[in-house]
């Protein structure tokens, strides 16, 4: 197994509102190695955006990390001062977002913006020529035609797909160790999405960038990720390598998700949908957070939160797989496989 570039352990995040602290993330654990793509999948309210903010320590004023570690190559990012963190952001830890138009400054050419990023992190050591060359090089790498010319253009002069490529170029320009991609293709047309995903995957493999790919789209995740982590109500409920997750999803939530995707082989039958709604942070059930929507819920699920177990590399947070939890007839759950 490759050495992990990013390792998160026991991470808890709360949002403060008046006297109450709402647990946005609980007990988060993840690992990404060099050149590896970890997919984080979840629906709205699962905490995936909070997680990406937490990793970069870009939390809103009422957000607080109350526990845990975020290791970047043996350094705990939660322990370093903000000034040092700022050096990491952009250079070692890069991020790309869903809407590239709002992430690029509309009043500067992209050449200027790319130059500024390099200057901010390279100090005075880079000459103008070097900066220019690097910018052109990056634009070529992301497949932009006429890069030298386009450096003089403004963000609004590019199409959505081109802007996304620019954002990728900017993010990878300083050869970061980690790239966090938060729904980067959600707003793109399907044919464009395929191009961008392919580009992203290629570049990350080539440079050995540890990539965290956040998405609500299981199809996209299946195309680009090596390992996948499923989140629900601020917790990781399942985590496994790509094929294991899709071939043998263990957690009832993961299974329901996979079954509710409309597709051809479901024609003629009703689609599965998960009853109820994602619990709001202010009204989380005690015990397992999925208890009110799970077809297999039992008393023990209402009482205590399941442990995050490891079953031959496939991790799941569910009492049915915990022989010591008191869950009865676990066979019913394990037999309820995807694809029936």
């Amino acid at each position: 197994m490759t050495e992990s570039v990013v390792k998160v352990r026991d991470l808890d995040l709360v949002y403060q509102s008046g006297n109450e602290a709402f647990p946005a993330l609980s007990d988060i654990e993840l690992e990404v190695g060099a050149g590896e793509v970890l997919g984080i999948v979840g629906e709205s309210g699962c905490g995936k955006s909070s997680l990406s903010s937490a990793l970069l320590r870009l939390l809103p004023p009422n957000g607080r990390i109350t526990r845990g570690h975020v290791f970047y190559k043996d350094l705990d990012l939660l322990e370093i001062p903000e000034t040092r963190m700022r050096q990491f952001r952009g250079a070692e830890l890069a991020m790309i977002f869903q809407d590239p138009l709002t992430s690029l400054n509309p009043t500067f050419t992209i050449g200027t913006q790319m130059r500024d990023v390099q200057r901010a992190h390279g100090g005075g050591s880079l000459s103008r020529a070097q900066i220019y060359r690097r910018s052109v090089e990056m634009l070529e790498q992301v497949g932009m035609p006429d890069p030298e010319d386009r450096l003089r253009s403004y963000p609004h002069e590019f199409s959505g797909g081109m802007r996304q490529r620019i954002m990728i170029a900017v993010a990878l320009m300083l050869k970061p160790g980690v790239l966090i991609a938060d729904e980067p293709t959600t707003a793109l047309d399907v044919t464009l999405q395929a191009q961008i995903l392919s580009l992203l995957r290629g570049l990350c493999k080539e440079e050995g960038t540890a990539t965290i790919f956040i998405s609500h789209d299981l199809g996209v995740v299946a195309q680009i990720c090596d390992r996948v982590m499923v989140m629900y109500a601020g917790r990781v409920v399942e985590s496994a390598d790509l094929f294991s997750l899709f071939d043998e999803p263990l957690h009832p939530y993961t299974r329901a998700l996979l079954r509710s995707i409309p597709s051809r082989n479901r024609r003629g039958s009703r689609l599965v949908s998960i009853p109820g709604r994602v619990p709001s942070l202010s009204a989380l059930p005690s015990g397992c957070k999925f208890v009110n929507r799970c077809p297999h819920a039992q008393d023990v699920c209402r009482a205590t939160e399941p442990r995050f177990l490891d079953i031959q590399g496939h991790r799941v947070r569910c009492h049915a797989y915990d022989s010591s939890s008191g869950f009865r007839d676990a066979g019913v759950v394990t037999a309820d496989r995807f694809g029936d």
Partner: protein
Amino acid sequence: MEGKKAPRAEARDLCVHFGQRAAGFAKFTGRRAPVVHAVDDVSLEIGPREVVGLVGESGSGKTTLGKALLRLVPVTSGQVLFDGDDVSHSRGDQIRQFRRQAQMIFQDPHASLSPRLTISQLLEEPYRIHRIPEEDRTSVAHLLETVELSSELANKYPHELSGGQARRVGIARALALHPKLLIADEPTAGLDVSAIGNILNLMNDIKDEYGISYLIITHDIGVVEYIADRLAVMYLGNVVEVGPTERVLDDAAHPYTRALLSTVPKPDPRRKDGHAPSLLPGEIPSPKNPPSGCRFHTRCAYSDNGLCRTVMPKQEWVDESHAVYCHRWRTVRG
């Protein structure tokens, strides 16, 4: 084809262009005012009790076509027919009658509900507009029940509802007048995966119970795979292919359709589309300046630089129900 009933809704050689007046004026001022060819020469039928899926990417004109079928945008040329009647230029009473028969479910659930009216008032709007007497109205409670919403929501305002609830209210409102045709614009966009099933199941139930035809406009191929009887694919204002869903999925004749279908990411890790991006280089051209001839020729791997570049393809039949608009479809299919 003889003895066939008139289709529920039909577009015949329909063109919807925006900006004509400005463009005409521009000739005097010398300024550029491009006309947007949102829909060009489209012919499409929706039969009774049929679900037609209309897919395409940005700039394809699918939303505009949907709106044109409901006469929410003006018809530049060609015809829009409903139950055999030409409604292309109807006004006044005629169009009001038409509105009772064909309704739309809008893409943005909250934005399509008037913010200062309660749900109850919103659901009564259709009856008030058409001055339908009390005894012929469906009660608010019943309408809410049809879309599986609690009657407690009747006194709430749109912003107090979740996205999914607002969407259902939109559906309930569209059903109030018992239309024969429902056009759903991106019915699953923005919904969590687990909620998509709910909406699609609901739409199916409604179809079965009320015998409604649907036109489902979406960019999500999975949705049309699952629910549509026929599938129409649009690119830059033209329909490029249309036919029974399974036929089109299995045996697409148009290069764009094939590319589209192959690049849709499926939740199946073994089906990786490593080579697909090379099938479809570049980006979609702007509808203000569409390519000459076949609009897809600039990105098409089969384009022959002659006919494809100069002549707009006409409708050709792959078989009796499967039509394609491509000069080289026989080669494409191999």
